[in-house]
Every structure is written in structure tokens, then in C-alpha cells.
């Protein structure tokens, strides 16, 4: 029995090994950027295929776990994949493919020659590792892998804005890592283990559990550490100061994956480990969720630079999955999982489109843009799909995501957060319409400006990823029935930590 399980489970390492191999191959051909590009795209495609396979396996056979080095569970490092992890890895694969293709032409030759593709894949490796690991210290290590790659990606190119942004990004993320590390030390001193399933098991059984007050105090340290990474209120200031500085491809990758790793970690620890005083912790999460939504969207409304405006929306949208976590029902968590997937697609699409606009007009300033609808009506249509999906108009994916969140909130009687989330949606719609009016609809302020031309035949590497992501947004919008079933299964598993514990520690629990 154990032997056969081991055969399937061993492939759990693939989402980590594939980006690693790709990055190493790219490094071997460091002097041949052309070859690196294709290795990069192939590697990302392979990751996507494996992630879909993994999702299939987890869906049909339940939570999968593998003990690295065959050390039994609480002692060694465990990799675990439940439906939530698998969905997040699929997301990493999808964005990896889209951004790898988009980078072919949009990232300049200089950056590609200095290791853009290996870094991108190291980033993907860190992200997948963070999604798969079942050990908190190991999570810290994957965070660092991911952060190192992201530091270099952010600073690569060395423009003045990038340097200033990188200083803030690096400082606050290192601060977050230090808090995380301190929390790990205290947690180990308290429980004598850092295996997530073992922690959950120990804290759940009343005999061996430390007092709830201490656990809750510790959970606040974790909330601060993951909160900085997820850019929640009031810890988000590094994000709008840095995200708009690197090339758009990098921003799209960061916006889709990095903050989501923070959200993933929050959801993981606050459904599995820190559930003792959920009246207090999860109400706090709801308050933070509301404030994050409001401050983010108000920040966005004031912006006139397209990438900065979109950066503020990243913050605002982080509030929604937190709201699902704060509601703490299977429906709420299912909605949170669906929301994370949907918002990463929509957000990355918007960034990629802003990159195309930047290439056409040489600026991201809404005041200087205009008249894009005339020449590029198909680009306008693509933008509209992603923008309306972000705002949550039916029948887009954002509508179903917010509908189910609101439903879950109403069922639990959390009327305030429901009202806030709906109001924020309206403001989101307002600022999406602002981009639409300023960039696409109004007459171009500089009529004589020569407009670069962009066609699918010539510039497919710019447009294919956008089409791919918009197509996927449409799939999860119109295929909401089967897609939401996956999210519902993830929500069920998250609300039953016993399943996770059993999968890691074995049948006896």
C-alpha cells in the first residue's frame, strides 16, 4: 500500500524540479539568450502541463503528501498538495507561460543577456515550493528563494526608478522575513515542531496544547509577516512604490504571483493552525480585509499613471480573499480560492495590455494617452473584458467571485464587510472606466503623434499571452459550474484540517 502511494506521490516534486531544471539549463546557455528564451517558454509550458496533471490527481484521489528523503512525517520535510495548492500551482503555470511568451520581445536584449529567464524560473520555483510545502520553516526558505529572484528581477536594468523601488521593496520584504523567522523561533519553542500538520494536530488536542492566548499572540506575528508579503492594510506601502518600475512583464508576473503567495500562506495558517480563537482572529481579518479594499481603491482613484493605478488595485483586490478567509465557512473559502485565481488572471492581463499601450504610445500617463479605440479597437475589447471582470460585472468571472463572497458573507450575517466589498466594486468600476475613457475613448491630445502599428502576425508574442489570459478568463466565467466545483472542493478541504493532518501524519491521525 505504502509503496504504491509512494510511486504517485514522488511526482509531487515536479512543480519544483521543472523550474529548477529550466533555470539551470538557461544558466548553462548563459551566452545564448536566443536559446534561453525557448528553454524558458518550454519550461513554463511543462510546468503548466504538470500542474494540470497534479490538479487532476488531487481532485480524484484526495490530498497527496510525500516525505522528502523518506524521513517520517513530523521529522523530515513534507510536501503536501491539496486542491488549494494544486489550483495555485496551475495559476503559477498559466502565468509562467503567458509571461515567458510576452517577455520574448517586450523584455530588452540587455536584460535577457543578464539572466532574465533563469531568474524568472527561480522565481517560479520559489512560488511552487511555497505552495507545496507542509513545513513552516521550509516555507520560509521558499519565500527567500522567491524573494531573491524577485529582488534581482526588480533591479535588473538598473534604471533610477528601479533602484529606488528596489530599496523599498527589499527593505520591507527583509523586515517581513525577520518577523517570520522570529515567529518561527517562538513557535518552535512553544510546540517543538514546525510541521504544519503536526502543529495543527498538537494545537487541536486539548491535552498537549499551550494556552490559546499565547497561540493567538503568535498568530499575530505570522499575520504581520505574511501581511507585508500580501500587501494588506496597513503594510502595503512598498507595493505602489516599486511595482511600476520594472518592465511590464515582470510587473505582471509579480502582481499575479507574489502577493498571492502571501495570501496563500495567510489562508493556510489561519485555516490549519491558528483556529483556536477564531472569533477574535477572523474578525480582525475581516476588519483588515475591509480597510485593505478601501485604501487600495481610494489610492487607485487618485492615480493618473496606468501602472501605478493598477498597482493600487492589486492591494484593493487582496481584501477580497481575506474577506473569504474572515468569513470562515466552506463557501467563503471556496469563493476566496476562486477569487485569487480570477483576480490574478485579470490583473496580469491588464498589466500586459498596459505594456502594449506603452509600446504603442511610449507613455503610461493617462493624460497623454487617448484615441486608442480608433486604431486598436480589438485591444480595447480585450481590455474591456479584463477590466469588467476585475470590477465584477456579470457575466464575468469577477461577478461570480464577488457574488459567492457576498453570499457567504450574508449567510454569516457579516453585513458590514459585504457593504464595503460592494462599494469598493463600484469604485473599481469607476477607475476601470477612467482608464477606458482616458486611454481608449477620448481624442488623442497629440493628434500628430505617430502611432506604432501592432498586428497579430508581426507581434504575436505581445498579443498571444493577452489572448490566452482573456480566453481563460472567459472559460472560468462561462464554465463557472465545473470551475466553481473545484473551488468548492478546495474550500471543503480547508475547512476540514483533519484531512490534511491525516494525509501527512498517516491514517491514525
Amino acid at each position, binding site marked *: 500500500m505504502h509503496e504504491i502511494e509512494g510511486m504517485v506521490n514522488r511526482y509531487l516534486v515536479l512543480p519544483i524540479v521543472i523550474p529548477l531544471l529550466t533555470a539551470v539549463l538557461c544558466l548553462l546557455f548563459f551566452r545564448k539568450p536566443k536559446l534561453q528564451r525557448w528553454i524558458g517558454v518550454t519550461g513554463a509550458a511543462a510546468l503548466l502541463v504538470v500542474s494540470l496533471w497534479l490538479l487532476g490527481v488531487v481532485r480524484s484521489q484526495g490530498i497527496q503528501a510525500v516525505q522528502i528523503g523518506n524521513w517520517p512525517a513530523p521529522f523530515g520535510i513534507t510536501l503536501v498538495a491539496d486542491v488549494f495548492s494544486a489550483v495555485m500551482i496551475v495559476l503559477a503555470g498559466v502565468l509562467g507561460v503567458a509571461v515567458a511568451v510576452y517577455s520574448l520581445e517586450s523584455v530588452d536584449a540587455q536584460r535577457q543577456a543578464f539572466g532574465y529567464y533563469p531568474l524568472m524560473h527561480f522565481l517560479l520555483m520559489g512560488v511552487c515550493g511555497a505552495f507545496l510545502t507542509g513545513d513552516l*520553516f521550509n516555507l*520560509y*526558505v521558499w519565500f*527567500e528563494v522567491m*524573494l*531573491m529572484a524577485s*529582488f*534581482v528581477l526588480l*533591479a535588473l536594468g*538598473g*534604471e*533610477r*526608478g528601479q*533602484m*529606488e*523601488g*528596489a*530599496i*523599498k521593496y*527589499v*527593505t520591507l520584504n*527583509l*523586515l517581513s*522575513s*525577520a518577523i517570520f*523567522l*522570529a515567529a*518561527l*523561533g*517562538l513557535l*518552535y*519553542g*512553544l510546540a517543538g515542531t514546525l510541521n504544519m500538520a503536526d502543529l495543527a494536530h498538537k494545537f487541536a488536542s486539548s491535552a498537549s496544547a499551550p494556552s490559546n492566548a499565547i497561540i493567538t499572540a503568535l498568530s499575530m506575528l505570522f499575520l504581520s509577516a505574511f501581511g507585508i508579503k500580501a500587501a494588506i492594510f496597513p503594510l502595503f506601502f512598498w507595493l*505602489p*512604490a*516599486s511595482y*511600476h*518600475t520594472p518592465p511590464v512583464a515582470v510587473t505582471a508576473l509579480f502582481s499575479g504571483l507574489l502577493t498571492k503567495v502571501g495570501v496563500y500562506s495567510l489562508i493556510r495558517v489561519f485555516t490549519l493552525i491558528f483556529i483556536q480563537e477564531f472569533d477574535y482572529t477572523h474578525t480582525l481579518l475581516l476588519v483588515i480585509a475591509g480597510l485593505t479594499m478601501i485604501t487600495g481603491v481610494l*489610492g487607485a482613484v*487618485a*492615480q493618473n499613471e496606468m501602472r*501605478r493605478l493598477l*498597482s*493600487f488595485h492589486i492591494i484593493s483586490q487582496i481584501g477580497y480573499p481575506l474577506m473569504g478567509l474572515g468569513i470562515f465557512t466552506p463557501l467563503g473559502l471556496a469563493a476566496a480560492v476562486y477569487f485569487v485565481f480570477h483576480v490574478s488572471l485579470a490583473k496580469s492581463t491588464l498589466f500586459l495590455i498596459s505594456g502594449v499601450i506603452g509600446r504603442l504610445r511610449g507613455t503610461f500617463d493617462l493624460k497623454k494617452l487617448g484615441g486608442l479605440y480608433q486604431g486598436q479597437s480589438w485591444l480595447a475589447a480585450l481590455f474591456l473584458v479584463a477590466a469588467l471582470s476585475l470590477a465584477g460585472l456579470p457575466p464575468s468571472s469577477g461577478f461570480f467571485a464577488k457574488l459567492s463572497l457576498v453570499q457567504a458573507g450574508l449567510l454569516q450575517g457579516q453585513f458590514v464587510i459585504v457593504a464595503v466589498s460592494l462599494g469598493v466594486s463600484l469604485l473599481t468600476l469607476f477607475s476601470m472606466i477612467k482608464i477606458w475613457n482616458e486611454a481608449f475613448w477620448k481624442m488623442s491630445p497629440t493628434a500628430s503623434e505617430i502611432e506604432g502599428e501592432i498586428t497579430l502576425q508581426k507581434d504575436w508574442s505581445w498579443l498571444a499571452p493577452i489572448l490566452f489570459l482573456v480566453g481563460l478568463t472567459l472559460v472560468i466565467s462561462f464554465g463557472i459550474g465545473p470551475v466553481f466545483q473545484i473551488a468548492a472542493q478546495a474550500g471543503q478541504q480547508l475547512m476540514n484540517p483533519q484531512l490534511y493532518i491525516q494525509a501527512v501524519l498517516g491514517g491514525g491521525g
Partner: protein
Amino acid sequence: MEVVLPFVIGSLYAMAIYMLLRRSLVKLLIGLGLLSHASNLLIFTAAGLTRSKAPVIALTADQLQPPHADPLPQALILTAIVISFGVTAFALALAYRAYRSVNTDDLDQMKSTDA
């Protein structure tokens, strides 16, 4: 020792935060370094300090004899030290590049990307 170390760690954190809040880029880096030291010491202390033997099973015994130190925190700290070494090296290089391109080490002058 267990009474002294919390004070050491606390002062390290205080110094680190103080340095992080200064305007100079170099002091910021010193602050980050102190911060990681404080966290490492914290892991070391939180896991419990014991005057005991290394956790090695003697040739004559088949399991570990009780007074022994917990090896895991050391392993964790070692990992954390290696990581913070790499990160600090990167931060130094980044600070130097930032200094070259902005021409100042005053963080208050680096506000052009703030929203």
C-alpha cells in the same frame, strides 16, 4: 543565560529598528543585519538553553541518552544565517548601485517612485 539573552535580543531589535528608521542607506543596511542577528538569537533562545551533550548516540547505546541539546534550532539558524548572508550581500550591491544612480545615500531623496 536564559535571563540575559532576552535583554540582548530585545536591545538588538531596538537597535535594528532605530537604524532602519534613519535616513542613511548604510544605516538601513546595518539595521537589516542587526535584525537578522536578533531573529537568529531568538530562535536559539526560544528552543531552550541547556548545558548538555551533543545529540550523538553513543556506540554502546541504541538510543539517545537524555541530557542532550536539541539539534534542530541550530540547523534552522544555520540555514537562516546562510540566507541572510546572501541577502545582505545582495542588499550591499543594491545600495551601492542605488547610490551611484541617485547620487545620494539619503532615503528622503529617493521619493520619485512613491505614489
